[in-house]
Structures are given as C-alpha cells and as structure tokens.
C-alpha cells in the first residue's frame, strides 16, 4: 500500500533532508512538500485533491501561520479517513511538547533532526 506523506515546513534544509530520506526508504512513499500552512490548507480544500494523505509532518515555527494555527484549522476539517499527524520541531521545550500532545489530533511530537529509521517508524506506525 502506497503511503502519502505531506511535509509542512518553511525551512529549505529540512525540506531537502526529508526528500533525501524518502528516497532511501525501502517502501515507496509519495511525498508532497508545502512551505506554509496556508498552502497545505489550500491543497486540502481543493476539489481536485486526488488523495487524502496518510501522514502529516508539521513544523511549529513558521512565519505568518504558525504550526499551532495550522493544527487549529485541521481540527475543524473532516479529512474522511484517519490521518496521522506528527508535530515536527527542533524545540525541546517541555511546554511546547506538552501543548502539542494535548491536541487530540496530534499523534506524536517528533524532535528534529529526523533520521531514516525514525521516519520509517513513523510511517510504519501510521497503518
């Protein structure tokens, strides 16, 4: 079963990193990358969206719309099937971690950087 992975992060280095890691995965994964929350929300609400994603990786620290705001919006959207949402941030601040885990739709808080094995784990969990 092919998996759809969406990354929302403004940092080009991290975007590059995830793209690179996906290439190295044993299973085939479709990756879509958005620079901002606005782009993600626009994509999700577009009528010609062919497939809903299985896994969402969302960064917290972004200009304009922060990761927190993206999550607020996602809470209100019915995606039709179970979507695994991971918060992905470099912050090790316990306040951020607690706050993220209190959001019902968030499955896990992932601390950057992210390695191949970790990405595999996240995708495996999302079944």
């Amino acid at each position: 079963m092919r998996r759809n992975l969406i990354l929302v992060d403004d940092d080009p280095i991290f975007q590059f990193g995830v793209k690179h890691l996906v290439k190295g995965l044993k299973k085939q994964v479709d990756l879509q990358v958005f620079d901002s929350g606005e782009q993600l929300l626009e994509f999700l609400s577009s009528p010609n969206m062919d497939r809903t994603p299985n896994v969402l990786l969302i960064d917290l620290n972004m200009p304009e719309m922060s990761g927190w705001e993206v999550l607020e919006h996602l809470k209100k959207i019915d995606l039709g099937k179970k979507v695994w949402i991971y918060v992905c941030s470099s912050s090790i601040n316990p306040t951020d971690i607690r706050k993220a885990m209190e959001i019902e739709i968030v499955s896990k808080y992932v601390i950057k950087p992210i390695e191949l094995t970790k990405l595999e784990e996240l995708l495996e969990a999302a079944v």
Partner: protein
Amino acid sequence: MYICTMFFEQERKEILEGVSDGVWLLNNSEQFLRISENFWIHLGKDNLAEKVSVGDFRQHVFEEDLEVFNSMLDPGADYSEMNSEIIRFVHDSGNWIWFEVKIKQLKNERSGQRAFICFDISASRERERIYLEFDQMNRTGGWLIDMVHSNIFWTPSMYMVHGMRLDEPTPGIDEAINFYREGDSRERITKLFEEAVESGIPFDAELEFVDNRGNEKWVKSRGKPIMKNGICVKVYGTLQDITEEKQRERETAEESKRQFEEIFNSTYQFCAILDSNGVILNVNDQALKFGGLQLYDVVGQNFWEAFWWQNSERERNKLKKAVRTASAGGTVRYDTVVWDKDKNEVSIDFSLKSMSGRNESKFLIAEGRSIQDMVDIQRDLETMVKSVSRHNDTLRNFAHIVSHNLRSHASNISLLSGFLKEAVGEPLEENVQFMLEQASKRLSDTIDHVNDVVIINTDGEAVNERLNLKKAADEAVSTVSAISETVNADISVNISSRIEVIGTPAYLESVLLNLITNSVKYRADNRKCIIHVAAKKKKDLVILTVQDNGLGIDLEKYKDSLFGMYKTFHGNSDARGIGLFITKNQVESMGGNIRVESQVNEGTKFTIELLSA
C-alpha cells in the same frame, strides 16, 4: 452679828454655787480668795483648797486674759453694778475653759469684799470658734438682710472676704454691690439681687470682686430670698472667696492648653485648625516647617489658598468640597498630593473633620501624614515588578531562541552531516555542502543576535547622554537613503531641533534605523511608500512616532508576540524577526517604552516615549 453674817454668807454661797459653775470671794485687804469647790472641779483640779492667795490663783488664768483678770481684782475698780467679763482658765488637761464671770461689789459686807460668780461657757464658745474657723477655712462669709427693717447682718468672715476689719461699719446693699468688679460682674450681681428681691429667685454665681484693700478676687455669691405674701422680707446668703480655686482652675486650663500646644506642635502629623468656612486659625509646627512657612503667612487665609495646595487646581477644588462636607458634620479622608517647601509633590494621607467649640460654634481639624515613603516603596515595587516581568519576557524569548533557532540550525547541521557520512564512496549531492555552510552561517548569525540582546540587557548602566533627536532621525534617514530611493519612498522628519532626549547614541540610532527600515521593507506594493517621523515634548517625556502606510500588522493575532524574538509577520525573505525585539530592549534600557498601532493594509505607527533632556 458675826455668826449671823457667817450664816448668811454660808447660805448665800451655797445658793450661788448651786446656780453657777463656781464662786470666788475676794478679801481684798488680806489678798486672798475663797474658791468654791465646784470651780476647782470645772478646772479638773483635785487641789480643793478653799483659800488661795491671789498670786497662786493667778497661775490658773490663761496668760492672754491676765490683764482682764487683774482689772477684775483691782480694788479701785467700780463694780457697784453687776458687770461681767469673759476669761479663760487653763484646765488640768491643758485646754481652756471659758468662763463668763459676773462681778459684784458686796456693799453691805466688810469693805473690799467682792464676789465673782462664774459660768462655764466653753461649749458655746467652742462651737462659735469652730464655726468661725470653718468660715475662715472655707473663706465663706454669711449675710442676712432684713428688707423690712433695712438691717444688715454680716458674719465675721464676711469682713475677711471683703478685706475689712471687724470694727469697720457694715456696708449697705449698694456699697456691698460695689465690691463686685465694674462691668459684667457688677451688672450680673445687681440683676441677680433684683430678681431675688422682686421675684423670689435664688441665685448662685461666680463673679469677679475687688476687696477693700484692692485685691482682685473671685467669689461665689449665693443668695436666697424669703418671701411673705409675695413680698421679700429677708434675703440671706453666703459669699465664698474662690480665688484660689479659680487660680487652680486657670492653671489647670493653662496646663491643658500648654499640653495641647505641646502635642499639637510635636506630633509628626500635620495639623491645622480651621473655622467652619475653611479659614485657617492655627497650624502646627510640623506643617509650617514642611511648607517652609510662618504662622502669620497662613493664618486668616482660606485653607485651599495656602501654599501647600498650590500644586494642583483639581486638589484645591477637592479640598473646597471637603471643607463643605466637614462643616456639615461629615468626615473626609483621602490620599492627596501637596507641595513641600521646595515645591516637591509629596503624597499625604489627609483627613478633615469638624469639632464642636464653645457656644455651639464649630471648627474643623485638618490632619495630614506623609505617606511618601509608602508611595515610593510602592513605586519601587511596581518598577521592580515591571523589570522582573521584562526580564522574564527576555528569558522566555531566550528559551524560544534556544529551542527553535539555535537548535533548528544545529539539527539541520546534524541532518546534513549524516547524509555526508552515508554518502561516503557514492557521488555527493552538490548542494549538501552549500546547505551546510548556510546552516552554520545562520547558527552563527543567531548567536550574534543573542549576544546583542545579552549586551543590551546586561549593560543596564549604559552611558546616557543628551541627544538631539532631529539630528539622529536625519542621520537614520540618510543611512537608509540607498534603499529608500530605490523604491522611491517619501520619508519626512518633523522634529523641532530643540528637542533633546536622554539616551545611548548607538541605541537611538539602531531604534530609528530599524523602524524606518521596517517601514520601507514592509511597504505596500500598490502605493507609494510614505513614512513620517515626528516628535513632540510632553512634560518630562519626548513622544517619538514612526508612521507608515505599508502592509500593517494583524495586531489581533500578533499583539502578544510582536516584540518577541524571531517573530516575523510577513513571508518576506529577509525578515529576520529579531529587529523589534532588539528595538524594544534598547528603548527600555534608555528608560523609555514602545507601543504599536496598526491596521492591516493601511499602515503601522510605532510610538516611543523617551526621557526628555
């Protein structure tokens, strides 16, 4: 004849002894006395000698009365009529015995025989003496006026109170009234006496009096009329010398006054006494000293027109109102600010209340207590709380930088270096190296920014100088001219060249540059960029504004994080998000503050308050 005489003599003696308290018979030619037994008993003597020499008998007489005694026995004295004398003998106990002695020359007997019949009047004499002593002790005289016969009777003490000798004639009513001090006292006693006589009203008054020797006295004069068929027949009363009591009363009053003044002037409170209209009657030393005033500067002035209240029209009006409230019986208490002698504003806890004076008059007591120390402490506390919460904000921002910025660059480096390791032996992707350089550069930049902020926040005692604001603003405009001219921005500076602020030159420059640069950077593309830099003085502050017609900031959303570190509001590529955080820290380290007003797509206005030089 002799026997007959003897018998008769014996009989007569017994009769006389029976009705009297003692009898002596003087045989003048032989200079001895025959003394009856009951006389000796009255003197408490057991020496019952019937016949004693004149010389021996004289020893029993009280020495002050010896002259009278001698004259009684004088053979030349004529006692053909029954005469009497008062004479004191000394009782065995040492007390006096008063005798009224009736003396009779016995004509029919042998020449030189004289009889003395004694009556003990000690009891009544003692009573009289005690009464007199009481009168003298109380310095009280008694008087009685028989209105029908126009007789006036005075007890001896009356003479004493009047400073008169007992043998002086008793004054008549009008004369007696003239002893009262001319004026109020004399008018009152006249009226009281008239009312007593005409209407039967008793009187009791304390009045001033001048005695016969010119001594000024206070007397308590009481009188009671006796009426018969509506007509006054007698008036009697007492006159008491109360000069000493009055003196003591006055001393007590003076002592109370002295104590009051002592308290009034030594208390740490400010005190003033006002009449019911708010006119100053008295002010204590503390309040005078506080205002650098003399009593004559303020007495008679309306309280609110006095120096202390000249700092504020509003406080003066409040005080006027307080005077009205207190005059109506209310108590007013509030914290207010007054001037001290150097026109410094000092906070005081102020109260005003009314007190009843004599004759139902009212006066107001104003009290004040400096609470400047408390106010200062509170202000220090507030400043400290502000400073602590500012530091707290800074700390939170640092935590954010460390978590989100330093760590994100570090994690990127770690991610990329991982790829390099994997790729050993395989062809390297070209841009990994470039990205590594970029990540490490950003890490280094972030560390520089953190360093800038740390310097501002720890260099609390940065050099503060007088800075010309217009000059600083003009320089900032000229520094950004390269960019602003490219985008054709219109920047105007409207600041008086006289305005000077207290600040650190580098910070002021940085604040102006950052705000103007932001305005250029976040301009709206669809209109000409217009930026106004202006300033005006307001009391000890200078209000600097930087206003643009750019993109604006959604304050609903970013109000709390606007001045936080690494917050960017626009997707602008070179928005580094540290500028406003540093600006805020720089402004605050110069003792100022910054706030923002903005409408999305209309513009932004930053307002900065700086200390005026």
